[in-house]
């Protein structure tokens, strides 16, 4: 028992979150995502969880110097759309909190209340350079998927930054199915929900219900209809996108974000004119559904060239392989998007989309989420050497690296189970 307690105390003492670090990373190619652009042989100084300076100066005295000559230093990657921490094993219901079809609440649900900072996919994502993510549940039993949270990938108990980053809803084929069978039904559902929320508490006095929503759901949507929290709508077909954009006139206060936009390139100018940012999967190029017949690998680049604000994610691969967002960005470059824009699409753009101008950039006073890479971060063969979250160096270990280390040799005298990793 005493040994156990001692061990626990040791672990606690060495927990990274306890350490405030003063670090100067020197000699690297620094991608700032600011007007400073890319700095060769740059120095990034971190102290007390913040970036102190970004430039070419010498390391200040008192800072621990990390020599990153020949390396790349970038802001930590920010997953624009993720489900890390919501499902340890998606196929096992008790280990899956992504959706709640059996609940009478949908819009009122907060992913933050399901988030598990001990989820093994957190370490797995972090050691590939991801420091933060917007995580959200999935719609089930209606159009709304509830509130997304912004979390960091430190694995600490206090790793939830924001409980209400955006509200998720779906239209298109998925929305039609959820609303009773047609796009018309889904659109009417969305507008009625908005009207209910706007009117609340008017109209709810008698039976506690609006035309569509129960009281708590209307309350939950209030910040959305008042424009305090963005509404992210998944939609793919060009015509569906245009219909969604009509909401800008009807509801000018609502801050829209489009998720999917697989046919977005066909209406790129309209999206740009409406100033609505999009989250796309640059690899979605199959006519997998009738709503994405015009899918092309050039969607991301064309949207970006038209002036649309573009971030990347693959909602279909959002829990265990959120880390593949890096590969999405590299392929966007291969298909015509400038490198700088593709990199911002997985760092500063999603951060800013959710009102976090302190993330995804390396500039004085920004939050010190920093990654040191052994090469171009959009190259598949590059990987992080070090990851800092809030200025603290993170362990570069996951359950996967432990399994790897255990089985590097298989023909040993004693069974693997006796090996401590």
């Amino acid at each position: 028992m005493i040994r156990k307690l001692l061990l626990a105390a040791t672990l606690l003492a060495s927990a990274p979150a306890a350490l405030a670090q003063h670090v100067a990373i020197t000699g690297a190619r620094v991608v700032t995502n600011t007007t400073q652009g890319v700095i060769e042989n740059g120095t990034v100084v971190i102290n007390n969880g913040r970036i102190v300076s970004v430039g070419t100066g010498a390391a200040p005295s008192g800072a621990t110097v990390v020599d990153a000559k020949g390396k790349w230093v970038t802001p930590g990657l920010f997953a624009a759309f993720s489900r890390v921490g919501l499902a340890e094993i998606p196929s096992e219901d008790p280990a899956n909190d992504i959706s709640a079809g059996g609940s009478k609440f949908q819009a009122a649900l907060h992913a933050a209340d399901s988030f598990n900072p001990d989820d093994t996919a957190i370490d797995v994502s972090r050691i590939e350079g991801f420091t933060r993510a917007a995580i959200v549940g999935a719609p089930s039993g209606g159009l709304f998927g509830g509130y997304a949270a912004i979390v960091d990938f430190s694995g600490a108990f206090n790793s939830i930054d924001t409980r209400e980053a955006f509200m998720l809803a779906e239209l298109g084929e998925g929305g039609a199915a959820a609303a009773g069978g047609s796009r018309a039904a889904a659109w009417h559902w969305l507008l009625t929900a908005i009207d209910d929320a706007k009117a609340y508490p008017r109209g709810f006095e008698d039976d506690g219900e609006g035309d569509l929503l129960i009281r708590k759901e209307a309350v939950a949507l209030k910040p959305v209809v008042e424009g305090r929290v963005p509404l992210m709508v998944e939609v793919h077909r060009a015509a569906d996108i245009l219909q969604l954009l009509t909401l800008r006139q009807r509801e000018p206060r609502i801050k829209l974000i489009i998720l999917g936009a697989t046919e977005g390139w066909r209406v790129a100018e309209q999206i740009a004119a409406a100033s609505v940012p999009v989250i796309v999967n640059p690899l979605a190029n199959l006519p997998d559904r009738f709503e994405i017949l015009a899918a092309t690998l050039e969607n991301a680049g064309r949207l970006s060239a038209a002036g649309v604000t573009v971030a990347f994610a693959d909602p279909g691969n959002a829990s265990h392989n959120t880390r593949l967002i890096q590969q999405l960005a590299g392929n966007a470059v291969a298909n015509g998007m400038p490198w700088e824009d593709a990199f911002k699409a997985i760092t500063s753009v999603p951060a800013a989309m959710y009102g976090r101008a302190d993330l995804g950039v390396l500039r004085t006073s920004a939050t010190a989420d920093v990654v040191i890479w052994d090469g171009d971060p959009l190259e598949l063969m590059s990987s992080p050497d070090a990851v800092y979250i809030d200025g603290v160096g993170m362990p570069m270990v996951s359950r996967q690296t432990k399994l790897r280390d255990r089985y590097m040799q298989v023909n040993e005298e004693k069974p693997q189970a006796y090996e401590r990793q």
Partner: protein
Amino acid sequence: MKPMATRVAYPRDPYPSTYRPLPAEDVFIRNATVFDGLGGMIERGAVLIQGGKISAIGSEAAMTMPAGIKAIDAAGKWVTPGIIDIHSHLGAYPSPGIEAHQDGNEVSGPVTAEVWVEHSIWPHDPGFTRAMAGGITAMQVLPGSANLFGGRGVIIKNVPARTAQGMKFPGAPYTLKMACGENPKRVYGYGGGRFPGGAPFSRMGNVAGYRDAWQKATEYKRKWDKYEADFDAWERKAKSAAPVGGEKGEDPKDPPSAPDRNLELDTLMGVLDGDILVQQHCYRADEMAQIIDLSKEFGYKISAFHHGVEAYKIADMLGTNGICGALWADWWGFKAEAYDGIRENIPLVHKAQNGCAIVHSDDAYGIQRLNQEAAKALADGNKAGLSISKAEAWTWLSRNPAKALGILDKTGTLEPGKNADVVIWSGDPFSSYTRADLVFVDGAVTWDRANVDSQPVVDFELGQPGEGDVK
């Protein structure tokens, strides 16, 4: 005199390949970085394609360009064998993935060895052309993994055709899809009564199901072997002995009668005869070890374990038993049996004694960039200290799948005499930024990134938004 009775025999290839190579011209690809597919790399290399075959490969300085031949200057480019995806469902689960297109799994029972996936293939699946753009020259299309025995797989060339027969790889063997673990027990035992069959409910039920089927196949084969032997004997006797006239219905004069045909057991017997190659979906290491013993119990060979998320735990056993691991670079965690996935799985299987690692997709998106999947696995393996070259890693994409599919004598490497299944890449194929520029199957260009006339558009896409766009 009575006519000689004929032996009962069924056609072994009743749905034969009608594949014909596309029009091709001889080409000399020069000034390239060449991966030969055997693990070697040639700087300033050249590949000579004549008559649809590789006729020479080597350092350009040591080769002579035939007079009058078309030359392709591949400066700054890489040349490799075409990628072979050993695990695809294209055509059987085509795009769009509507209900009417769900033709990949005959879920009517846990043992459906009688179905042949080629009978489900829709040649107009847009996924085929997307895979072309990714340098895929051949693939194995498999039935899904609901069943213990899912049915026969088929090896096809990635060329546009009007029929599945028009894509079938001439001379390639048939394969058999089998599946371990969670899928069969979930679909049958816990299928909520939607499917007939009941069993299996458990992994031990899975194994009992395999054993029961293999035992039946063993007995079926015994009957056919006996019939063949009896017929041989009867034939010898009938030929040598003077014909006996007059009497009827006497044993010595009548040929032995053939066993009843059973289409399910035909396929399993083909495995026991060594003609059909087993492709076994299996995630967990302990289960793969059980399946290896199963194969020994009934005397057949497993060609490859597919998915094998835990293959790294038994990489030595796979090598010892000559079984390839057809694996993902980094898929993991979506179900319990995929929970222990690691990014070094492929390189660890590669590094084992006699190791045979394969990068596979099982996915209409993944098949479009298997080179990138190899790159990720290679980087992680090397970061863990395994020191594998890019040229060696290319064996995961062409030679090893060709070997596990029984077509290595025809394709999979750039060796003289083999089919000219070749890709010219815009740069290092292990880079995110590289694309396939030119893809050759049997020396004919199936895909040319610079020429829309060599970018096929399938029927489904005609008249639709996005027709002929960059895919």
